[in-house]
């Protein structure tokens, strides 16, 4: 074998032996966590360039961290979006509702009401606040951890639960794995299990909007792990080449299932800095600071609407829970990471800000939390009337064959007839009532 080392060569050659670097996270289960070396700049310290700025002049923002909310719970600096108290309260409510929803759906999966669920705990600001900075008809191409966008856009939570339960009320007819929502009415693109495929699609949608002289823009969300997919590179290239009115949001929550962000390249650079090589504007943002998330998205939206170009935003955050209901993070990371995470919790930080500016109090917070929990509970009961997974209350059999094509071709007609024959063999007396 020509590519094997030459063993006839005497050892002790003066050429150094090569070494493969395999990244390793700092902390594994049981390790003491120390984040003191993490470089976290002070809130308000980052400049806010004009939305039409040349990416070359924004280099610092791709390596820094845009922050607004300080330890004093006040908003600081030029990135403060200066939102009115009602908007802030709506933001807090949406984030609290997402959290209440996640908690109940996670429990629903454990109770066997559905097969699967994924929480977004700790990342609520990256979807809720960002979505609130867009127009309601701007098109979003999310990954599977942006349920906050649907909530912020007022999608009925009963419909979300119907989808999760794959019941007879499920608008996607039980075809999709739980949480792979779709709602054209809410300009929310159909979620795919295949990672990062939505990123060039978002760019294509934005190109279409530009081709038609429309004023709507597109935004897409992708995890830091999925930025390693080829699609993400295509998306960045096409976005830059055609100056597409698109926002590429990268949620850097440090973990891609069990692989830490080092396996997506985080040891050597930031994800926002990738923007620079493509000639995109790049912003790196405190993902647990709802005001910073809103401000960055708003900046990028204004830029896109002005035909000034696409933006890549990295939200620096932490995936506080397991990857999914099928995952146990205690098998690969220290439980202390979540407790020690220096950017805190996005819901708590926004709550404290509202209290600090005199627009909120603990009593109202308690009432709101209760209301969110009750609202989710009521929606769950409502959805359960349409059935839960595996209890027979699903869409009619024939729907399995529909929508593969616009019209049913002969071979699917034949297979549909076969499926119905199988049902008759299985239940000669007719299907038992569930």
């Amino acid at each position: 074998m020509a590519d094997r080392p030459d063993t006839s060569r005497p050892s002790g050659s003066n050429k150094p032996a090569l070494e493969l670097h395999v990244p390793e996270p700092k902390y594994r289960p049981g390790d003491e966590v120390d984040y003191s070396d993490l470089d976290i700049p002070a809130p308000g310290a980052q400049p806010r360039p004009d939305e039409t700025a040349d990416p070359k002049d924004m280099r610092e923002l791709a390596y820094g961290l845009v922050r607004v909310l300080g330890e004093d719970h006040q908003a600081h600096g030029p990135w403060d979006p200066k939102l009115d108290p009602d908007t802030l309260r709506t933001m807090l409510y949406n984030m609290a509702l997402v959290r209440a929803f996640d908690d109940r759906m996670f429990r629903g999966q454990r109770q066997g009401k559905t097969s699967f669920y994924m929480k977004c705990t700790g990342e609520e600001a990256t979807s809720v606040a960002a979505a609130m900075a867009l127009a309601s008809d701007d098109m979003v191409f999310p990954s599977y951890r942006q349920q906050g966008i649907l909530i912020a856009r007022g999608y009925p939570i009963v419909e979300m639960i119907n989808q999760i339960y794959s019941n007879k009320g499920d608008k996607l007819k039980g075809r999709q794995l739980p949480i792979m929502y779709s709602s054209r009415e809410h300009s929310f693109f159909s979620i795919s299990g295949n990672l990062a495929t939505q990123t060039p699609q978002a760019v294509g949608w934005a190109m279409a909007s530009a081709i038609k002289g429309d004023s709507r823009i597109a935004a897409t969300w992708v995890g830091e792990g999925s930025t390693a997919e080829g699609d993400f590179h295509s998306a960045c290239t096409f976005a830059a080449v055609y100056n597409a009115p698109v926002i590429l949001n990268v949620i850097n929550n440090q973990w891609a299932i069990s692989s830490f962000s080092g396996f997506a390249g985080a040891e050597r650079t930031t994800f926002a800095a990738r923007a620079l090589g493509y000639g995109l504007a790049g912003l790196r943002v405190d993902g647990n600071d709802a005001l910073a998330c809103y401000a960055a998205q708003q900046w990028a939206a204004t830029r896109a609407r002005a035909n000034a170009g696409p933006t890549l935003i990295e939200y620096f955050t932490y995936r506080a829970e397991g990857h999914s209901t099928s995952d146990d993070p205690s098998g690969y990371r220290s439980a202390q990471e979540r407790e020690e995470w220096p950017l805190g919790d996005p819901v708590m930080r926004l709550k404290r800000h509202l209290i600090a500016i005199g627009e909120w109090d603990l009593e109202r917070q308690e009432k709101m939390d209760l209301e969110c929990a009750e609202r989710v509970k009521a929606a769950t009961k409502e959805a359960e009337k349409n059935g839960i997974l595996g209890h027979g209350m699903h869409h009619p059999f024939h729907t399995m064959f529909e929508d593969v094509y616009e019209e049913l071709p002969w071979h699917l007609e034949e297979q549909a007839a076969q499926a119905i024959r199988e049902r008759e063999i299985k239940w000669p007396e007719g299907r038992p009532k569930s």
Partner: protein
Amino acid sequence: MSGQVSEAAIQDGVTERRMNMIDAINDALDIMLERDPDVIVLGEDVGYFGGVFRCTAGLQEKHGKTRVFDTPISECGIIGVAVGMGAYGLRPVPEIQFADYIYPGLDQLISEAARLRYRSACDYIAPLTVRSPFGGGIFGGQTHSQSPEAIFTHVSGLKTVIPSTPYDAKGLLISAIEDNDPVIFFEPKRIYNGPFSGYYDKPVEPWKKHPQSIVPEGYYKIPLGKARKVTEGDTLTILAYGTMVHVAEAVCREKGVDAEILDLRTLVPLDIEAIEASVEKTGRCMIVHEATRTSGFGAELSALVTERCFYHLEAPVERVTGFDTPYPHSLEWAYFPGPVRIGDAIDKILKD
């Protein structure tokens, strides 16, 4: 444009022109760009330059560079943005320069375009037509000769269309562009300029001597899912598509075999009725394709004919295909399922 108005040109106000397959494809794109402002043509070198095979020549100049434009060299990106454009409501017609290079776009085609209507319960559709030159016989070697149709016929949600004449190329392409399902439109590049008999050592016939090169001006459609009866016959049925339609026809003419040749034109959805009617009449079925044999589309055709026409068959179904090797360069004509391989198979199937 090399076509010219034919002598018997004007019938019911429809003018006809002689076209080769490139002209016919160009004409179909031109007509659809004109008729539907949502049609967008994109791909590597398709814009200013007009395509490496000239299929998009003149289109950018006529329709503007936001309707017909060049893309980065990224098949994943080309298909991916086309899916997004479809979700917006456009009708993109992306080109992949060679079918051999469609693989980087497969995830977008298989996981996204093909499934979008189904997974979103019609919230979103992917009405794209992916055009791509395919097939061998041009000394294209491993990466300019492949026939990967079976990869796509195996994907539920995709339609696969392969024309074999200028007339069909135009009518089928217009249908594909108007179809609301994603269509893979493979153009046999060996017959872009003329039908190919399989005799590589004889001069190439131009399209202008072929009756199917008379193409109507303007808009017309050939429905997807309908085969074309190339020749009527009683002795055996030959199922073919693309270049192999012409090779099979030449061999049968030469051998004096009264074969019924069906040009399938659309592989999915397949014209099963035409196939059944023909095989029930002839009792013998031969399948011809350039693609490699194992798990090729011929296997699906053979299985269908065997399942559905078993009691009419007087001989085993024969498959004449490329060999199960990568497409070779120097040994192209030993690989290509040409007149000798087809003739041998005909002798075998008629012996029983």
